[in-house]
């Protein structure tokens, strides 16, 4: 391992090289973890404000200017609450679950490139790392549900696991598209491949699929049947109180924003926007862009009603999964064809190299891929609309029959 920056300074100051390396790595890890954890404090405020506006309320506005300090007040309240562990709970696992849940989200940030020069770890398996780490969250919920020794918690956990495991499939297939276009699983390489053209224009369908399945992964409406208050009381976290509940809560809030950041990296070009060469501005662009999917996610959460579990499963297995597979296959085929025609920029070894191409060079390829995506969508949207019309007609008929029966 090389020793630069802080490590170098420490070594020159007379610190043992091994210790210097350890300290600099530790500091890096702390920084990478701190950024999301500080962000989440303000995210909770933003989310509550947006939700309030959508529901025609004011939202938190008492503590501090614009209610900015509300989260801190809530934090103190949560910390001061009695920390209850049910008598029949599995003590060790019960306490480990909230930690694991938050860790699963915080770990994703290790591969997030904050700026062109600052990234926790530029793994060449970054995308795979994200999928692997995110699956820890599923396990955390399963543990929480089982360790609480409560039937509502267990039922909630079963639902979550069924939901998360199913929606991981379209998520991974949608993730494959930017990986395929960039020719790399490294998050940094994926961003660099979008220097000329964002992937959302080349593969809008994959972007939408990724967004929908990541919305399901966070367990937000319309997929919030995991905590469906009216049926399950609160779902898997029913027995949790105080800061342990707060950690599940924070993990969920952070997960939504993390998904926004990931969509930005994978489809919206990361920090690419005028002025990205300067670290602070690049960081700002990443954050601002991440708010686009984040805001849409909140918008959906606050306006769409909850689905039933069978509807959610059907939607996944009969719609998202086949569509995402078809999408990957068609895209791969088209890219191969375009490469034969010579519309895809390649490097000297003949491999696809989008990073070196400009906007104009990428335009023909983008147009073809965009049109193909639209062509995939048109029949599907038509079919969905027809299904909706049929179902509504059937329900209408049923209602009139019932009304007639009641009239008799």
């Amino acid at each position, binding site marked *: *391992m090389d020793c630069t920056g802080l490590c170098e300074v420490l070594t020159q100051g007379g610190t043992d090289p*091994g210790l210097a*390396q*350890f300290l600099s790595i530790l500091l890096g890890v702390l920084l990478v973890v701190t950024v999301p954890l500080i962000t989440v404090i303000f995210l909770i405020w933003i989310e509550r404000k947006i939700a309030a506006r959508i529901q025609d309320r004011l939202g938190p506005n008492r503590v501090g200017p614009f209610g900015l300090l509300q989260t801190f007040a809530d934090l103190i309240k949560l910390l001061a609450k009695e920390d209850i562990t049910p008598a029949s709970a*599995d003590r060790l*696992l019960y306490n480990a679950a909230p930690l694991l849940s938050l860790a699963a989200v915080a770990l994703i940030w290790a591969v997030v490139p904050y700026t062109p020069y600052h990234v926790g770890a530029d*793994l*060449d*398996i970054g995308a*795979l*790392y994200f*999928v*692997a*780490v995110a*699956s*820890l969250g*599923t*396990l955390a919920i*399963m*543990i929480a549900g*089982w360790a609480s020794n409560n039937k509502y918690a*267990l039922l909630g956990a079963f639902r979550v*696991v069924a939901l998360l*495991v199913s929606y*991981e499939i379209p998520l991974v297939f949608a993730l494959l598209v930017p990986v395929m276009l960039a020719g*790399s*699983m490294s998050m940094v390489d994926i961003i660099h491949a979008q220097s000329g053209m964002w992937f959302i224009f080349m593969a809008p369908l994959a972007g939408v699929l990724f967004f929908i399945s990541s919305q399901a992964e966070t367990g937000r409406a319309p997929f919030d049947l995991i905590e469906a208050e009216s049926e399950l009381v609160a779902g898997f976290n029913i027995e949790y109180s105080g800061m342990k509940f707060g950690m599940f809560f924070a993990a969920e809030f952070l997960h939504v924003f993390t998904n926004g950041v990931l969509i930005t990296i994978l489809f919206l070009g990361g920090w690419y926007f005028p002025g990205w060469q300067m670290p602070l501005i690049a960081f700002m662009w990443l954050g601002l862009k991440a708010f686009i999917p984040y805001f849409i996610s909140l918008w959906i959460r606050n306006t769409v009603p909850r689905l039933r579990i069978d509807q959610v499963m059907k939607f996944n297995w009969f719609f998202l999964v086949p569509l995402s597979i078809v999408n990957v296959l068609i895209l791969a085929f088209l890219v191969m064809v375009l490469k034969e025609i010579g519309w895809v920029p390649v490097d000297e070894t003949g491999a696809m190299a989008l990073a070196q191409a400009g906007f104009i060079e990428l335009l023909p390829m983008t147009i073809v891929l965009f049109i193909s995506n639209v062509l995939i969508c048109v029949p599907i949207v038509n079919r969905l609309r027809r299904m909706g019309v049929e179902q509504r007609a059937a329900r209408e008929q049923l209602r009139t029959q019932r009304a007639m029966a009641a009239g008799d």
Partner: protein
Amino acid sequence: MIQFDFSTIAFFVFAVLTLGGALGVVTNRNLFRGTIWLMVSLFGVAGLYVLLSAPFLAAVQVLVYIGAIAILFTFAVMLTRSLTRLNVRYTRLWPSALGAVLLFAMLVIGVIWPVFGGNELYNQPISDVVRTTTDLGVALVSGEGYVLPFEVASILLTGAMIGAIVIARDADEEEMEQ
């Protein structure tokens, strides 16, 4: 002499996780906890893969074992719950413990120590360069590489999936008929 640097300490941490988790699996009375211990153990194995410069395998290990197999095990434990709280954990406890210890002793004394222990050749990897994940991907689908085993593996997975569905489903329908 062995240098106590970063990778050595990491090796010990992961080795303890692996073996401690494994002991937890075989000794725990509660099967759900056993599953969690299994995950700890397999996470340790993933750490060992990282130390052996195979990060791809480590990520796949976490994804496949913790993301999929752990969930399968927890479901199986809960679906067969009423009888998993058995008072008798073991059959043939002492013979199998003796057998396992003997096996370990035989492997270490008979094979590992004489063949690899004192051999200077095996103190260091031969080459510092390691093949990347890209190379692995190419090797898996190239004609002179492993494309045939790769296809066979996918057939195996498809077969296993269909088999699992058929096995678990048949009973369902029989029960419904009864």
